[in-house]
């Protein structure tokens, strides 16, 4: 009897060894605005992330196919928390992409509590760098963008008095605080600031006040359709000052707006003409697939998915299970990543460092004026 069991055990063991390893399906989450006034961003973010999935699957980077479970945040914290709860508890993802400062902050507690990695590639609120070990940023945050553009405007252009129109949410508040800190350091002055509700659409009254402030520069810190409405209504209501915005303005609708002509915006510096294989493949395939040139947002979510691919492949190579803890461990053990834009490393706080470009909008496109590198 014992001999029979031993023989059967040996046959089963041999059969197991002879069978190919079962491919593990990989699903990561993404909480993007897919409806509402900021839905245009969802399309932009998805195009980058989806292309990365195609590339990872085509290259066979992982043991099984990778897919993304999309959930709609409407760019609002409350639906985002519902979406994150579903992704964590029902879908069971180890890694989730997020966007927008308020949304990212809202889901970060769930990410930490459940040891699920949250990766932001769209929100730029400076405090996103302080959301714990399980929250990473693949985008340089707005404090760096402001530290690049404000000295440029004050010292290079001689524009010293600033007015700020900012959205009344965590992003706007953080940018207000940052501007108040930076301006005195470089000899500038914040002459007035105007907080606007996230749902506001009428800014002609604010424009009258901005005009009355006599500021040389008007910094617009909002996002989605609202920032376009602010810019249009500022110009329509006689505000001739230099308009400035952060990387959130680098969306096709905004660049195409006639009132955007001459605006200065900032954003992470990505050399799309680089000859490195990752960047070249991304630019070629993105342009071919979407019939338009990629922007930094496309890059960020492409990179965010590539980071998952690299980490999950490393974990699988060591025979481990791909969990949030394992991904965090693997990221800490990985010195650098080959991503679009070059070889980059995460800082200890989980944020990637990129150079910041100061750009001017001309003829519907953003043209680089200067690039600032931070240590």
């Amino acid at each position, binding site marked *: 009897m014992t001999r029979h069991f031993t023989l059967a055990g040996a046959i089963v063991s041999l059969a197991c060894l002879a069978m190919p390893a079962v491919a593990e399906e990989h699903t990561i989450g993404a909480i993007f605005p897919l*409806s*509402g*006034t900021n*839905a*245009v961003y969802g*399309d932009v973010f998805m195009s980058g992330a989806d292309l990365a999935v195609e590339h990872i699957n085509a290259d066979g980077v992982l043991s099984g196919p990778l897919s993304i479970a999309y959930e709609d945040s409407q760019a609002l914290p409350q639906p985002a928390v519902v979406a994150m709860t579903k992704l964590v508890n029902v879908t069971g993802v180890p890694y989730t992409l997020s966007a927008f400062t308020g949304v990212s902050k809202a889901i970060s507690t769930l990410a930490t509590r459940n040891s699920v990695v949250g990766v932001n590639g769209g929100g730029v609120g400076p405090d996103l760098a302080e959301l714990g070990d399980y929250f990473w940023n693949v985008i340089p945050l707005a404090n760096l963008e402001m530290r690049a553009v404000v000295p440029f405007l004050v010292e290079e252009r001689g524009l010293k008095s600033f007015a700020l129109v900012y959205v*009344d949410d965590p992003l706007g508040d953080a940018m207000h605080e940052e501007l108040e800190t930076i301006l005195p350091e470089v000899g500038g002055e914040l002459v007035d600031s*105007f*907080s*606007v*509700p996230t*749902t*506001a*659409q*009428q*800014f*002609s*009254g*604010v424009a*009258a*006040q901005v*005009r*009355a402030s006599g500021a040389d520069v008007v910094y617009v810190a909002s996002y989605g*359709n609202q920032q*376009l*409405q602010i810019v*249009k*209504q500022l*110009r*329509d*209501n*006689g505000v001739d000052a230099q308009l400035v915005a952060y990387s959130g303005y680098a*969306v*096709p*609708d*905004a660049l195409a*707006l*006639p009132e955007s002509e001459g605006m200065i915006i900032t954003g992470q510096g990505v050399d799309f003409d680089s000859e490195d294989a990752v960047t070249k493949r991304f630019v070629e395939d993105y342009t071919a697939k979407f019939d338009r040139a990629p922007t930094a947002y496309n890059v960020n979510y492409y990179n965010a998915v590539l980071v998952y691919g690299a980490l999950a492949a490393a974990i699988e190579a060591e025979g481990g299970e791909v969990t949030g803890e394992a991904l965090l461990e693997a990221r800490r053990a990985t010195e650098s990543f080959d991503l679009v834009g070059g070889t980059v490393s995460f800082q200890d706080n989980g944020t990637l460092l990129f150079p910041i470009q100061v750009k001017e909008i001309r003829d519907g496109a953003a043209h680089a004026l200067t690039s600032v590198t931070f240590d």
Partner: protein
Amino acid sequence: MLAIQLAITGLQTGALYALTAVGFSLIFGSTRIFHFAHGATFVIAAYFFYGVFGAGLGLLPSIAAAGLGAVAFGVLLDRLVYAPIQRHEGSFFTVFVASFGVGIVVQNLIGMVFGRGFVTVNTPLSRSVEMIPGVYVSPLAWIAILCTAIFLGALQFFLRRTHTGMALRALADNPELVRTFGLNPRMIAATAFAVGSVLVVPAAIITSATTGLNPAIGHHVMLISLAATIVGGIGSVSGTMLAGLLLGLAESLALLVVDSQWTEAVTFAILFAFIIIRPAGLLGRATAH
């Protein structure tokens, strides 16, 4: 100078609020249907104008397309959605939910056709010029005020001097009596939807060039319409007109005394003040139950 500037800005905003809100008030006052999809009518008119104008077909065809789109949507919604629900003794709440659902569907359809981003009609008429030192006014501001005066004047004439208008007012007061006089309440309701929908067209067109459009703009339109209807007095077209102007002016002039983030709250502060102090609204009739 800032006060004058804000007053002119507020007048322009209030004029557009008045036009939009009066349409809703007329429909609600006459038919007692909570036409939440009135915001969707605004979106349809605005995007039809944007689409036809953007295709280079000229101003008049664009206005005609916006008008036809708005009226067709309002009348068909009444005929195909509200009337069947009411025939089956559907409650006020059922009609409201149906209207809300239609609003969401329209928002998504418009997003699918025109995209979900910001669009605007580019015209030099939206650019302000300095009238006196420190006071800038765009030609569209004058057009908005003029349009409001013409449309609301015509509405008053229609309601007071024509048989159909009188029937509309009668429907609001006593539908049974309307039947007794041999009139068809459903036909009169259809008229209310047609006229109410037409009233949003100038506001939608002007908004497409001033603040710009997105498919979700209907919710804001509906909130303002509702607030103006309550502040003006439910069922009172003149009251709603005054309330629309009041809300626009208050929203703008509030910048003189409060921070910009509170301007939207001013609308609802006025609304709550009326609900508490004068529930019948500006020109509404007090009722006892």
